[in-house]
């Protein structure tokens, strides 16, 4: 048993690091934090695409990198440690893999190159008002009319719908049989008449979530992915993609680094917080749990590297990973003392007297969603209870 990376892996790591340092510039980061968010994200993803690194998880024949599991792990780790956001997942990690797995040659040709090049911005139409973690209860219906489906209903929690060119939607094409049957996976152009995006302001006072209404939206039947009525299987395949590298170990590591840097500068009664026993113990509690999670993550990686497939155990990574993300977000926020409460994020730190409290709280607040989306942690525990422990 050992965890040493090979010489090839190490030089790969150096190459990744060098690329990130050179290309993820301060100017780009500035843009990403402000009003030019979308432009900056596309600009960054196009850089990765030009380098051939935009889709590490895709098969090489569709434009993937052909990396080993270890290389993918190194890439993700370095990205997180450098504070670089993951590529927007809806195209590259969700609908892309679904299209190359289930799509027709025409669909592949139409959509995959534009996803890789970040020419189309995608969003996800799964949840509905009221459906929550019980996805199969969805009601948005699609009725065939000639060679088009006519969609009526509403989707909710749709991240970045305000930027999107396309949406992939789960619709009900039949009410016969089990609830999971009669669901179809279809793609809609956001410019289609009858689609309306309503913003939802979240608890962090920002706008990233939306409700998307469909009023008699006519979508070509040719946009159905896979078979009509088999959308549930397509959706499940997509969720398997979503759950890889979900632990976010490197993100937590980066947060801990930021916490330590800030704690050294926060002085309480003449002593830095980093020297405060009470604070040290809280930090230690998180760090110890993280040390374990990193190796749980590596054990999953080893299984995948040996050609295995991560099973329901990946639910463990999601649960523990999101818990630790929230714990570090909370600790970083609390470092700011009174300043964690400052609402305005656009005040000059020099004038305000503090530089990260407001942003740390925003991350903490939005971070509450991590244990809710993608199958809430309660649902993840049900999955473990049923499929790992065999409890019915």
């Amino acid at each position, binding site marked *: 048993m050992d965890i040493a990376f090979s010489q090839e892996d190490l030089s790969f790591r150096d190459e990744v690091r060098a690329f990130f340092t050179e290309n993820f510039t301060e100017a780009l980061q500035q843009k990403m934090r402000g009003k030019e968010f979308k432009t900056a994200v596309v600009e960054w993803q196009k850089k990765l695409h030009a380098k051939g690194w935009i889709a590490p998880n895709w098969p090489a024949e569709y434009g993937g990198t052909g990396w080993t599991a270890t290389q993918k792990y190194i890439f993700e780790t370095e990205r997180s440690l450098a504070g670089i956001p993951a590529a927007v997942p809806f195209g590259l990690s969700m609908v892309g893999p679904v299209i190359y797995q289930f799509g027709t040659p025409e669909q592949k040709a139409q959509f995959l190159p534009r996803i890789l090049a970040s020419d189309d911005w995608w969003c996800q139409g799964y949840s509905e008002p009221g459906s*929550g973690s019980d996805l199969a209860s969805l009601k948005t219906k699609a009725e065939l009319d000639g060679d088009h489906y006519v969609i009526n209903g509403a989707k909710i929690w749709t991240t970045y719908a305000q930027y999107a060119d396309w949406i992939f939607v789960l619709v009900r094409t039949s009410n016969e049989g089990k609830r999971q049957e009669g669901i179809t996976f279809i793609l809609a152009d956001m410019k289609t008449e009858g689609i309306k995006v309503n913003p*939802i302001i979240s608890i962090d006072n920002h706008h990233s979530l939306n409700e998307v209404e469909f009023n008699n939206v006519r979508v070509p039947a040719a946009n159905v992915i896979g078979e009509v009525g088999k959308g549930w299987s397509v959706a499940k395949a997509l969720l398997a993609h979503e759950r890889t590298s979900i632990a976010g170990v490197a993100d937590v590591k980066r947060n801990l680094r930021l916490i330590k840097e800030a704690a050294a500068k926060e002085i309480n009664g003449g002593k830095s917080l980093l020297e405060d026993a009470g604070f040290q113990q809280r930090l230690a509690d998180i760090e110890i749990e993280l040390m374990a999670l990193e190796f749980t993550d590596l054990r999953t990686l080893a299984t995948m590297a040996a050609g295995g497939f991560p099973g329901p155990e990946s639910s463990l990574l999601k649960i523990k990973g999101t818990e630790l993300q929230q714990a570090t977000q909370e600790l970083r926020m*609390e470092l700011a003392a009174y300043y964690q409460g400052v609402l305005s994020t656009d005040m000059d730190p020099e004038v305000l007297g503090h530089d990260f409290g407001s942003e740390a709280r925003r991350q903490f607040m939005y971070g509450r969603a991590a244990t809710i989306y993608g199958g809430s942690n309660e649902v993840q525990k049900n999955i473990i209870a049923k499929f790992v422990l065999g409890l019915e």
Partner: protein
Amino acid sequence: MNFDFSEEQQMVRDSIARFVQDDYDWDTRRAIVASDAGMKPENWQTFAELGWLSIPFAEEEGGFGGNIVDTSVIMEELGKGLVVEPYLPTVVLFGGLVARAGNEAQRAAVLPKLIEGGVLGAFAFVERQSRFEITDCKTSASAARDGYALNGEKVVVFNGEHADHLVVLARTSGGQFDRDGLSLFLVPADTAGVSKLAYQMMDAGRVANITFDNVALGADALLGEAGKAMDVVDAVIREATIAIAAEAVGIMGVLNAKTLEYTKTREQFGVNIGSFQALQHRMVDTMMAYEQAKSLLYKVLCEYQESPESADATVHALKVLIDRNSKLIYGEAIQLHGGMGITDELDIGHFAKRLMMINATFGDGTYHRTKFVEKAYAA
């Protein structure tokens, strides 16, 4: 032994509850928070008319002569409505300092007006470097002709945007971290050399960074004994800490009730989610967390009435437990409300943010745990 509230206390509780129900429903509060002032002056007049502003002050000042239990009752009820009008900064902090440290002339100049709702106040004690250590004070008041020259900056001053009068903590002698050498000054907010930068907090509170640039103060601006401010400050902060703990208890009760109600009506997988045993146990945990916090608050109230100083260790304990239990309660409230819980539209997140702000006020859980250890396990 008796944990009942007096008839007067029950009447005040009912009158605030009625105000929240009739005049402070969620849409009304939302509009108040979004208004330019971020508070409603008419409400403050109502508070005065109903006598709430007079309760903690002595009868000879025109007050009701209430005690810490009265203040807690008021704060718990205001908490349930997430009332943003500045009761804590004006009555408990500012009024408390003037009442305790002021001479007769200062008390007469300020308190009757405060009680009739004509004056808003604030206590300026936090500095950009100080975190929770109040004695870490760089703002200075140096002797000048006929009085003092005040220089420095205070940050995140609660109610700083609206306060007509400030009590400012400043150093008249000693080094940056010394407990001795701190003094209090009563400063009208429109005094020459006082400037404000106002901003809003996550709990909708209006605060300000306030700069003092060679502010000329007369000798009569000194509030209490020069160099000995911390005894008074400790006493007032102790009372204010209990007050926000009571407010937190009020909020925690509301969050639990709202979450419980939601789980009884929210359907997933064909049943109410409240029927899931895993969730039932978690709601039992949040119920116990609430009851435990309430119990420790009552212990503090009993000890404080014996002698305020003797309650010190328990006040630290209370702030630790409020921190821990409120995190559990607002965390579960958001989680169990699912996607709706993370919207700005739903009230849950706003109750959570007030609890977060309470946790960050007068020291967080980590800070008070250390203080508790020092007090309780001192050799």
